[in-house]
């Protein structure tokens, strides 16, 4: 069990008040808050060993390089990858997926090929494939959802065919909370010769992930949703695929030798990291991983399952509120999207904000899914390690009060 009271002390922002009320931060699927150790890792970096990396012979540069590459190794271990050179540092999940689309995708997806994805993707795992399909004459296919917001896999053998070159799907939905059977789907896709990209933006922060066990080809996640600073994300690529990929961005650090008209590329992973990297924030991501590992990812998952279970019970008592996503706790994460016919999510958000409760409202960057749910927008509460049952009570009470207010 997580010692949540203890954890809360590590997050300075949680002592903030909003309109005089203690902050109840339930917008974790958008971005997480940061513990002191992560914030301090940035301060330490800038106060004592800030330097550009890789190319310096002086002490600061060596220290910064070592800590930067150490942090990469932490990421490697954390997601169960085998080699540091499989991990490319990017800004966020979105850039990671674009990198795959514009390098591997551009050269391996041709006219007539299919890209299979789902109806629960974040725009970041949809629009890059739309663009690629358009550029290369390929087409997109979709795995449909069932009533509970889980993938309908009954016709999966018709969907994954020899035309399928890529299966791109999310590990956990940021709207429904659904955890998809990515390992099983990867096996099916591989049998048909397709590669698999997993959008791990919502899974890596909340559960143990092992990319080697999943056997996926590409895996993307963002630091900012897992206690780390903004501006840093990770793309994992299977080594044998990465070896064959063309660079994405060109410039300093990613080259080996440069002449007037041509250049050769640096070793992996630097071949994919052009220009001065986001050094401090990768080090911050390393500190975030230290923090999560000190809690244990199984404990994190357990805490969120318990809290989600409690919240779903409370929501159940709120009549007039529809909750989306799977009912089975083992198949969902700590994201609860809900809807009322009487109060627009936006108005719900404003009312809750007055009580210090931060939720997200809108299409959550998943418009096709929102449309499937037959709503214009939803309200979403999402949990993390520092959230409590008491906060869930505040949330449901405030929702109740809002419903009453609008019914007046």
């Amino acid at each position: 069990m997580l010692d949540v009271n203890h954890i809360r002390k590590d997050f300075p922002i949680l002592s903030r008040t909003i309109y005089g009320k203690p902050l109840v931060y339930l917008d974790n699927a958008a971005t997480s808050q940061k513990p002191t150790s992560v914030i301090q890792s940035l301060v330490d970096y800038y106060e004592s060993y800030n330097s550009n990396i890789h190319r310096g012979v002086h002490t600061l540069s060596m220290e910064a390089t070592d800590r930067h590459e150490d942090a990469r190794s932490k990421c490697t271990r954390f997601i169960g990858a085998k080699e540091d050179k499989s991990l490319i540092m990017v800004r966020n999940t979105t850039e990671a997926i674009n990198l795959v689309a514009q390098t591997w995708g551009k050269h391996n997806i041709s006219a007539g090929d299919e890209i299979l994805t789902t109806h629960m993707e974040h725009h970041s795992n949809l629009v890059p494939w739309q663009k690629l399909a358009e550029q290369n004459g390929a087409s997109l296919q979709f795995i449909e959802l069932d009533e509970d917001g889980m993938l309908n896999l009954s016709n999966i053998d018709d969907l994954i065919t020899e035309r399928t070159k890529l299966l791109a799907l999310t590990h956990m939905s940021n709207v429904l909370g659904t955890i998809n059977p990515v390992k099983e789907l990867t096996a099916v896709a591989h049998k048909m010769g397709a590669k698999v990209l997993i959008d791990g933006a919502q899974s890596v922060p909340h559960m143990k992930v092992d990319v080697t066990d999943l056997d996926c080809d590409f895996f993307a996640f963002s630091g900012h949703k897992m206690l780390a600073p903004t501006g840093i994300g990770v793309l994992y690529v299977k080594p044998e695929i990465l070896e064959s990929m063309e660079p994405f961005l060109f410039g300093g650090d990613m080259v080996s030798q440069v002449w007037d008209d041509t250049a050769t590329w640096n070793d992996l992973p630097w071949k994919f990291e052009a220009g001065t990297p986001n050094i401090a924030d990768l080090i911050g991501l390393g500190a975030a991983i230290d923090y999560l590992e000190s809690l244990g990812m199984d404990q994190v998952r357990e805490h969120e399952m318990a809290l989600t279970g409690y919240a779903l019970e409370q929501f159940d008592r709120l009549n007039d509120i529809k909750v989306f996503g799977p009912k089975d706790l083992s198949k969902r994460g700590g994201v609860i999207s809900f809807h009322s016919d009487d109060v627009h999510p936006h108005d719900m958000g404003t009312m809750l904000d007055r009580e210090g409760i931060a939720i997200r409202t809108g299409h959550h960057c998943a418009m096709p899914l929102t449309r499937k749910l037959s709503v214009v927008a939803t309200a979403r509460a999402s949990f993390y390690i520092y959230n409590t049952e008491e906060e869930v009570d505040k949330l449901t009470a405030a929702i109740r009060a809002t419903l009453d207010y609008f019914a007046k």
Partner: protein
Amino acid sequence: MSSPTFDFSEVDDLYQEIILDHYRSPRNQKEIPESDMDVTGINPFCGDEVHMRIKLSGESISAVSFSGNGCSISQASASMLSDIIKGKSLDEANNLYVDFRDMMHGNDLNEDSMDNLGQAEALSGVKKFPIRIKCALLAWSALGDAVKKHKSE
């Protein structure tokens, strides 16, 4: 679970009765068959949408229809707007937009301008909720853009 008490008194400025009324019963929903100006406002970040069709006779607005999807503020604001501009000239409509924008940005309006805004004056309470100002403005700035475009054609 002890029942907390909520103080929504500040919120009353935002959700005035007249606003909720326009939200629940938006005006001018009957689509006009032929239009001279189509006005579309979309907030890409939150997904709110308003669409207006405007029929002109000469330079003046003879009919308006409005449809949309979104929060109470964006929809009530659009509904009010669709009422107010009927019978106005395009220049007057644009002035209304400018006045309304000024009001939302916290500028004091003279009495005439206030009068012209009519029921939309109720939206001045949105000022205190800065993040909702965009909602209130959605239809109005779309109208402003459409008038500008129409004039330049």
